[in-house]
């Protein structure tokens, strides 16, 4: 068995186990050290992932595991998101007397997301999705005495349970149709006889896509996202708005590439994209709660990301565009949630009044993050959106780009509302912030966003070489 191909994942797994053991024996005041352990595990995993970059794309472990540039890029992105969420946590969790295993759960979630993105086999996909889901349910409800968090956790769990079981049904149906769970084999069989059982195949595809929309937070599996963004611990909100989305988008792109044209999947994905972005933006318009607003904005961003999945079969640049967009989104969203965390999770829009008067750096990072989410040049978000528009227009989906452009204008409205409140309103009351660690992490996330914007060339060169195996 080529164990070496799985080094990043094994590091995460071992790290998580060590943290669980550590948390069981460490005294209360040393629980936060687990964050350090988690960061070390993440850094090691990132180093091992980087070493996989140069390898030629291949399938490993009897073909169930894809090892290509897209998978490596996803790993790095997900690990970065995890590192920022973990680094934000010690200050946030200071008051929680037992939180060592929190970091283990974070690592398990990330491991699940990485499995999702690398899965080249439908059973592997199921394992990845279930692992990332079950590990993140308790994270959302980690504040046991906080009723909204419990409600969000329950909602997340119920929607997850439903969509995950549908996913399993879909995978079983697909297995029944093609006699294998391996993607390469599935593609062969489907290509050979595309119209053998069109209805059964459609049902299977629908169930699997539905299962993935849950992790993507795209319509119709999106309903948990605003609640989780609002009520989960803020670092977890940062993690769950970013990591599962990245993994699920890549997994969806891998999966739909297998399907025969008779399934009309580009049209279906395009419709999901349109509904998701429009719904997310319309719902965000009226929010008076910044975290909930960011949750809905995250839903709408899934819709944009799906634009690249629509053209994944015809446009060689589509995987690059997808990951470039997701990377830009991830950096901006992490920066925004880092600001929210640093401000002690202050959530009502009213409480952001006049923030620019005293917290100039914090406000600056928030404004840059929001403008990047809109796609105002020359911030990173602009290049992501530009690539999306380019691949969709080049593949003849100009109407989709127009819908996305209209949605962008719509989204500008609510992002600007937040910016206007911080800059134009008088300051109300004192501003309390979390601590040094959260400040440093927030600063790091802001610097990363700016660096990504200035170094867009590097990102685009990388994006151009991204592709799927096979």
């Amino acid at each position: 068995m080529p164990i070496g191909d799985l080094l990043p994942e094994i590091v995460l797994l071992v790290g998580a186990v060590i943290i669980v053991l550590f948390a069981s024996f460490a005294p209360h005041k040393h629980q936060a050290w687990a964050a350090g352990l988690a960061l070390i595990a993440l850094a090691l995993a990132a180093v091992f992932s980087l070493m996989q970059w140069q390898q030629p794309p291949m399938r490993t472990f009897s073909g169930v595991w894809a090892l290509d540039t897209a998978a490596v890029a996803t790993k790095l992105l997900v690990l970065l998101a995890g590192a920022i969420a973990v680094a934000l946590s010690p200050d946030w969790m200071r008051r929680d007397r037992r939180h060592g295993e929190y970091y283990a759960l974070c690592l398990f979630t990330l491991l699940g997301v990485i499995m999702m993105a690398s899965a080249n086999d439908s059973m592997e996909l199921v394992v990845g999705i279930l692992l990332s889901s079950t590990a993140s349910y308790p994270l959302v409800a980690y504040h046991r005495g906080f009723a909204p968090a419990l409600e969000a956790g329950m909602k997340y769990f119920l929607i997850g349970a439903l969509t995950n079981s549908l996913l399993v049904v879909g995978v079983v149906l697909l297995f029944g149709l093609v006699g294998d769970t391996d993607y390469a084999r599935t593609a062969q069989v489907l290509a050979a006889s595309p119209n053998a059982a069109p209805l059964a195949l459609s049902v299977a595809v629908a169930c699997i896509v539905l299962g993935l929309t849950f992790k993507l937070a795209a319509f119709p599996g999106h309903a948990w996202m605003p609640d989780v963004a609002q009520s989960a611990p803020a670092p977890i909100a940062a993690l769950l708005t970013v990591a599962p989305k990245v993994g699920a988008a890549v997994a969806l792109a891998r999966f739909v590439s297998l399907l025969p044209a008779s399934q009309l999947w580009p049209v279906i994905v395009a419709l999901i994209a349109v509904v998701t972005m429009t719904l997310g933006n319309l719902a965000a318009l009226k929010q008076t709660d910044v975290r909930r607003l960011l949750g809905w904005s995250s839903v709408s961003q899934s819709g944009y990301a799906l634009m690249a999945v629509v053209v994944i079969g015809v446009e060689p640049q589509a995987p690059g565009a997808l990951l470039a967009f997701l990377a830009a989104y991830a950096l901006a969203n992490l920066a925004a949630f880092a600001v929210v965390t640093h401000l002690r999770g202050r959530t009502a829009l009213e409480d952001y009044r006049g923030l620019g008067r005293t917290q100039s750096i914090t406000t600056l990072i928030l404004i840059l993050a929001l403008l990047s989410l809109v796609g105002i040049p020359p911030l990173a978000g602009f290049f992501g959106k530009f690539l999306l528009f380019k691949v969709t227009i080049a593949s003849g989906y100009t109407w989709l780009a127009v819908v996305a452009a209209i949605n962008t204008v719509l989204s500008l409205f609510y992002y600007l509302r937040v910016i206007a409140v911080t800059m134009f309103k008088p300051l109300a009351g004192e501003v309390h912030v979390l601590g040094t660690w959260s400040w440093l992490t927030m600063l790091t996330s802001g610097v990363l966003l700016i660096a990504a914007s200035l170094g867009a060339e590097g990102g685009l060169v990388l994006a151009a070489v991204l592709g799927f195996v096979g």
Partner: protein
Amino acid sequence: MILTVAWIVPLMGAVALAAFPRWSEARARQCAAGVAALSLLALVVAWVGFDPAGPLFQHVDEMRWVPSIGVAYRVGVDGIALAVATMSALLFVAAIVYPVDTLGQPRQYYAWLLFLQAVSLGVFLALDLLLFYVFFDLSLVGMFFLIGRWGHGTPQVSALKFFLYTFAGSLFLLLAIIGLYLSLDPFTFDMRVLIEQQPLAGSGLYAGLVFLALMLGFAIKTPLVPLHTWLPQAHVDAPGPASAILAGVLLKMGTYGMIRLPFAMMQETFAEYSLVVGIVALVAIVYGALVALGQSNLKRRIAYTSINHMGYTVLGIAAAAALFADNQTARQLALTGATVEMVAHGLITGALFLICGSFWQRTSDYELDHYGGLAHQAPLLTGFTVLAAFASLGMPGLAGFVAEFQVFAGTFAIYPWLTVLGVLGILITAALFLDLLRRLFFGRLPAHLGGFRDLEPAEWGVLGVLSLGILVIGVYPRILLTLIEASSAILVRVR
């Protein structure tokens, strides 16, 4: 190099102002004015060094930026861009020097003005489509904060409306830019390549759609009727100097964009639709003038005259685009006129909006009916307003006349009927300005205006410089025309 200096100096000034928290109001203003003047100086040097017999784009700077998608930092000017950019820089100096209530945040105010100057000049100097778009969008961000933070009335609503409406336009623009970009092989955003290759010539519907998206984007910015509805509210609620910039510089981005993108890069398609564009411009001319006549709010009235004047510019561009009319001289005349109109309108309307700012500083009131008889009370204010108003209505010997005469003379050879109807606009404008002057300065002085102060030295100094510009262009237009004709001749293929 000189062009890069022109836009980067204000940007560094903005950063410096934002970074040094201890500066007093006077210090911040002096510093901002100095920086803005340096930028103006750089453009004047570029003007002096511009060779009218040389190639279309001069002073070109190029640097790698994002080569993998064909984006580079490219700046350079033709005579049209240089004239508009220099006027813009002058207007920025005027807006910065002009006294205004900065609501206790002088550093931020001047930093945003300088930022806006940097990105506005960037729009006119860029030779790369994507760079152009970047600056085009950033100018919205700058103006959003200026209106929202330092405006009056309901500034945040106006700022939001302004940003949303014009951002919608710029997204159409982005789609069209991608459309143009994808039509080239290899992909590049270099404007010179696009102008030379005319990639969409003869590609029917696709070219039509790209053209429509481009024109929609620029028509919102210009603005043309019926896409003008963001303008009056933004103007009324913006602080005086920001209004001057909005009318004098930001509106020009629309018409300048029309010349630089659809006019230069899609000549064949523009020729096909030039009559439609001309008719829309005519509607803007007449409708803008009529609505302005109906306004009783000083600033709103001037705002609507901007719609009317930008209509002349677009009419000129449309006539110049009529490729089929085998009358190069007339087309060149129309294009030159359109450009002079941009410069003239920037100076004239900039002055008028600064004057509006002076009224607001004194009385916080724009209602024309609340004024009267100020001619004795404030002779300097009266003098400058009369000069700017007469220039705006097209009095011979002032800048507006030079522009409008050339636009109409050029258009007459190509679309005579549009010209005949368009001249009506001048008549209405004359009526509305004379009415405005009568209501502000003549008649009986209302009791509450007994303490109305005349202009301070800083105010009349600035207005004096702008008025001098208006006079010089009116009396000796050759300095401006040499520059513009050099480029308009190349663009309509006389040379």
